[in-house]
């Protein structure tokens, strides 16, 4: 399982990477949406993308819109991980093509629960 983590905060990428690696995932990182697109060109087989909203150059919403316009990534799941905690923003992200939404600050358990909901992890009995 391969994940792409896109966040302009290195600290946040580090925390998410650690959680995903503990779950056995291979992790690729990018510092904004534009870099994220470049990483996808290099590593197109990505199962899940965890994307921040507010980033320089290309924000998370723009990234999702551009990725969802490409059929190549139809099967990749997208999780928006952001400080935008308003329902209207959440709806905007889901309409753009995000599959799940995680509000910052988040815990390890919340992130894992969301990945389970997307069938990326086995469900706990």
């Amino acid at each position, binding site marked *: 399982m391969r994940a792409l983590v896109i966040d302009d905060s*290195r*600290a946040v990428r*580090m*925390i998410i990477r650690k959680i995903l690696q503990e779950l056995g995932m291979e992790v690729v990182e990018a510092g904004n949406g534009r870099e994220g697109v470049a990483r996808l060109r290099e590593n197109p087989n990505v199962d899940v993308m965890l994307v921040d909203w*507010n980033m320089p150059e290309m924000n998370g919403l723009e990234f999702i819109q551009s990725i969802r316009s490409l059929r190549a990534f139809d099967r990749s799941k997208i999780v928006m991980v952001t*400080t*935008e*905690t308003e329902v209207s923003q959440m709806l905007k992200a889901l309409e753009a093509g995000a599959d799940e939404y995680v509000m910052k*600050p*988040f815990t390890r358990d919340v992130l894992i629960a969301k990945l389970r909901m997307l069938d990326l992890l086995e469900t706990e009995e």
Partner: protein
Amino acid sequence: MIRIRDLVVADSAAIGHASYIRGAKTTFRLGGLLSTGRATAIRLLFNSCDVNSRPSAKRDIMAFEIPREALPLTTTSSELVEAFTQATRIALEELTRSWPMPLPAFCLVGAWRGGDLFASLKLDKQPPGELLLVIPTAVLEELARRYLGEEEPATPELLDDVAGEFANVIAGQAKTMLQGTPYHYTISTPKVYRSYPQIAAGRTYVVLPFEVDAGIFVVQVALSDGPQ
């Protein structure tokens, strides 16, 4: 646990208002002083500190001084105080398992100057606002250790990044709380400075100091109730 050895009151008239020390926590009431706009400076000197989770760490904790130019909070600024106090508590509790205790807030024309690391976040609306997190490096190092875990070495670049993320999460939480009010804004990306950042002349900030077991940090907000 931080032990406060000295409470130095710069203006003797403040002695009657200034508080009591209870165990390891210091509580002080300055509402009366600030509401009269009295020029009073109170300096808390942290002569020694003993951080439970890291007993060997001797910290250079910032002394917090209420400047003489401090202004009382207005009714409208109280709305900001409530939202950003709550937001800061939620952010720090969730990210670092620290429990910030709010110290008395006040207004100031021009931001409060102190600390050595500044995370600034533009709050987009008309006119534009700003959130400025001022945090001493020693306090940030301790909070970053809790946020990132023991094994990550806190390089200056990573500390900057953590300060920016703290500001980002605080702004995000407060934004939701201010939804439907004239203060509502959109968030930009944080910028971190190692020297005092340039601020708009004449801008008034609501200054919110907080105490955690690692020391004191300050959240400052400049936000008007003009159209978004």
